[in-house]
């Protein structure tokens, strides 16, 4: 290909969109590496500590869109102490000091300060899109800066972040006419919902916050009329406080909705949810609470034939009661929604038989995350472990990339996963397995494994140390409440200098020098830049 001018190569590479493919392209030869990196606009950094901002900027001077992820996934469930890290400030500083014309920033599980948001809003004239998922550290002051300074903002997506101040005043910082705004995904308080809708009638994504309680109020009527004008809305979410009698306000747009998130609407009864969903025949994505029940899921199955992604969350998050969905709901969905490829399902129980049926009905799963609320719960009918059920899933779903296990599981399920889950990239395991063999089956068998996160399983140093080279082919490994020891982790760190092996030593449990003591939390990841300099005291990098 030496006789093609660079521009031609670049044009060809334009058709190569996915990160993975572009990464592959860049490995072909020096020429391709150079052309690829100079033309690359979108970069995905799965672990902000794997490289430095300087490396990123040097390699991709044409960067326009950056995705950054910080804390390990289990940080979402309070398994990682505060102040662990994941600060976006150094990245924004470095980018703003460079010539990069950043237009989009997507952050997940990172610490974002108001200072960072202000710097961001002032540094990039063409900034268009900010997505913050499960982040923390900022308040509405930072958001006000974004609203006020980013003249070309098209998308502001705030999902499940810990924001310290919930006042809606910052929303008035949006200019009078946000004709560029097409996506506002966060909990909008009602008073401002009306205002925003009037300023940005072309909105495609909309989050609603405190809804209203009284269908006779003037605000409600105004809202109803405004929504009628927003025919463009395709994605609706929020509903943090909604009185069921006010749901009819949304009915006019239901038919066009492709994405609906009702998973915060704890106050809406299953029957009301069902009434709403019956009108949403074009839904591709549905997030809902389990109070919809198995019967409600049957309605979803018969109504939403285009459904691709379903998430059923527990309404009883303290886990002390009974969940409202069982294996029956899932089987109904699998039978009725042939396009389903992503699932997150919190349920009270699951059977092997049901999983086998689901596997047969839906061989196209890419993401399959099942959470049986009671750990180590067996198949309630046969009292057997769920090895065979999950085995059927991995055997049938040849494109499975993400899997989360739960229920009673022995080493056998990992044998199946190692054998069949050839495309598996991320595996989450809790309270499962009998011995080191389980983990080894997975490490040996899943060639494409990138992230492995394990909690409360009996895997020790033998599992950890058998194939140390594997970890350089992966993004990260998390092990908590397992059987790995300090000595084992030290050995690993010594043999693999390009990994950061971090021990989280909360509450000063660990003593230096005592090799046999168990390590409560270990997080290791490959990196180009060695031990991080912002690690807090309780994080030891071995």
């Amino acid at each position: 290909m030496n006789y093609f001018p660079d521009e031609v190569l670049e044009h060809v590479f334009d058709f190569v969109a996915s990160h993975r493919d572009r990464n592959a392209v860049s490995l072909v030869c020096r020429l391709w590496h150079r052309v690829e990196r100079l033309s690359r606009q979108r970069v995905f950094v799965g672990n902000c500590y794997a490289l430095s901002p300087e490396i990123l900027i040097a390699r991709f001077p044409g960067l326009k869109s950056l995705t950054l992820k910080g804390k390990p996934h289990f940080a979402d469930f309070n398994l990682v102490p505060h102040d662990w890290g994941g600060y976006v400030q150094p990245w924004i500083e470095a980018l703003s000091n460079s010539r990069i014309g950043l237009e989009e920033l997507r952050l997940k599980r990172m610490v974002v300060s108001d200072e960072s948001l202000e710097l961001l809003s002032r540094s990039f004239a063409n900034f268009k899109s900010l997505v913050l998922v499960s982040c923390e550290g900022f308040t509405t002051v930072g958001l006000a800066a974004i609203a006020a300074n980013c003249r070309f903002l098209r998308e502001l997506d705030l999902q499940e972040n810990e924001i310290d101040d919930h006042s809606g005043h910052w929303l008035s910082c949006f200019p009078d006419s946000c004709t560029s705004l097409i996506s506002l995904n966060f909990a909008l308080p009602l008073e401002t919902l009306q205002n925003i809708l009037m300023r940005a009638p072309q909105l495609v994504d909309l989050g609603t916050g405190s809804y209203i309680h009284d269908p006779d109020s003037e605000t409600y009527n105004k809202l109803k009329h405004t929504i009628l004008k927003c025919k463009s809305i395709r994605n609706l979410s929020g509903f943090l406080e909604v009185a069921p009698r006010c749901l009819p306000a949304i009915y006019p747009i239901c038919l066009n909705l492709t994405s609906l998130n009702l998973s915060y609407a704890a106050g809406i009864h299953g029957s009301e949810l069902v009434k709403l969903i019956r009108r949403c025949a074009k839904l591709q994505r549905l997030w809902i609470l389990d109070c919809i029940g198995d019967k409600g899921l049957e309605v979803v199955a018969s109504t939403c034939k285009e459904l691709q992604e379903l998430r059923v969350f527990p309404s009883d998050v303290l886990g002390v009661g009974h969940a409202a969905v069982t294996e029956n709901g899932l089987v109904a969905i699998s039978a009725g929604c042939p396009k389903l490829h992503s699932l997150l399902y919190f349920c009270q129980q699951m059977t092997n038989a049901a999983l086998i049926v689901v596997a047969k009905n839906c061989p196209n799963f890419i993401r399959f995350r099942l959470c049986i609320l009671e750990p180590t719960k067996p198949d309630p009918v046969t009292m057997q472990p769920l090895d065979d059920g999950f085995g059927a899933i991995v055997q049938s779903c040849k494109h499975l990339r993400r899997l989360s296990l739960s229920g009673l599981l022995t080493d056998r399920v990992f044998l199946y996963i190692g054998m069949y889950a050839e495309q598996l990239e991320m595996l989450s395991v809790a309270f499962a397995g009998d011995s080191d063999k389980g983990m080894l089956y997975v490490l040996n068998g899943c060639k494409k494994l990138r992230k492995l996160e394990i909690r409360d399983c009996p895997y020790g140093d033998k599992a950890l140390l058998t194939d140390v080279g594997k970890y350089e082919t992966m993004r990260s490994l998390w092990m908590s409440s397992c059987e790995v020891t300090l000595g084992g982790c030290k050995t690993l760190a010594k043999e693999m200098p390009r990994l950061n092996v971090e021990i989280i030593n909360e509450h000063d449990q660990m003593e230096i020098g005592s090799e046999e003591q168990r390590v409560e939390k270990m997080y290791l990841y490959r990196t180009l830049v060695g031990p991080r300099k912002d690690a807090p005291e309780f994080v030891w990098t071995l």
Partner: protein
Amino acid sequence: MSPDLPKSDVSSGLNFKETELTLGLPGEIGRGTSSLIQIPGSSSAKLTGTKRGFSQAAMDLNLGRSFSVEHDDSACEQSESENEDLSVAKPPSAKAQILGWPPVRAFRKNVITKSCHLVKVAMDGAPYLRKVDLEMYNSYQQLLSALEEMLISCSTIPTHPTRNYLDEKKLMDPASGVEYVPIYEDKDGDLMLVGDVPWKMFVESCKRLRLIKISEAIGPDPRTPQQSASCTS
């Protein structure tokens, strides 16, 4: 490379099979075994089961039994049956709160649990109870409308939205003419008539709701349906 087992373990005749803890109910064999892990480099076999959050929490959890395993070496010789003898019987309903379980983001947990004041609603003559979230309503009128819709009217019968409940907090079943008076149980356990205190105060103190048939409420002189003209549309 995995370290060899320390010789002391071999010589002590440690039999791993015997030391396996099962997750099954006592008496069941061969189901989901959980073997104890040998710590390489340690001079003696240590039972590490109890150090695992798993064995403490998961086994305490609603499995109807819990294994308490000792830390010292003598525990290694225990067989399966001895493990059962050791088991401290815990009530099946005792559930340990496991850190980070269920795997739901803190944001979501806060949203679901906050401002959700669910109370049971019992209606005389109804075979089962319902639940309402008092936070959903701003006034007695809204609450009573909702209760009426939920418990009394059929969904096909339209309820009148402007019914006045200010003076008479009663509900009526148009089909039968039976009237109900809403009462509630407050924090002190007393039965109170709904409507006497300001709404917010009511929401804070209400523990459960009940709709009682008016004949029971008033006593031996029940009102006739005609006198409840204000309840009809």
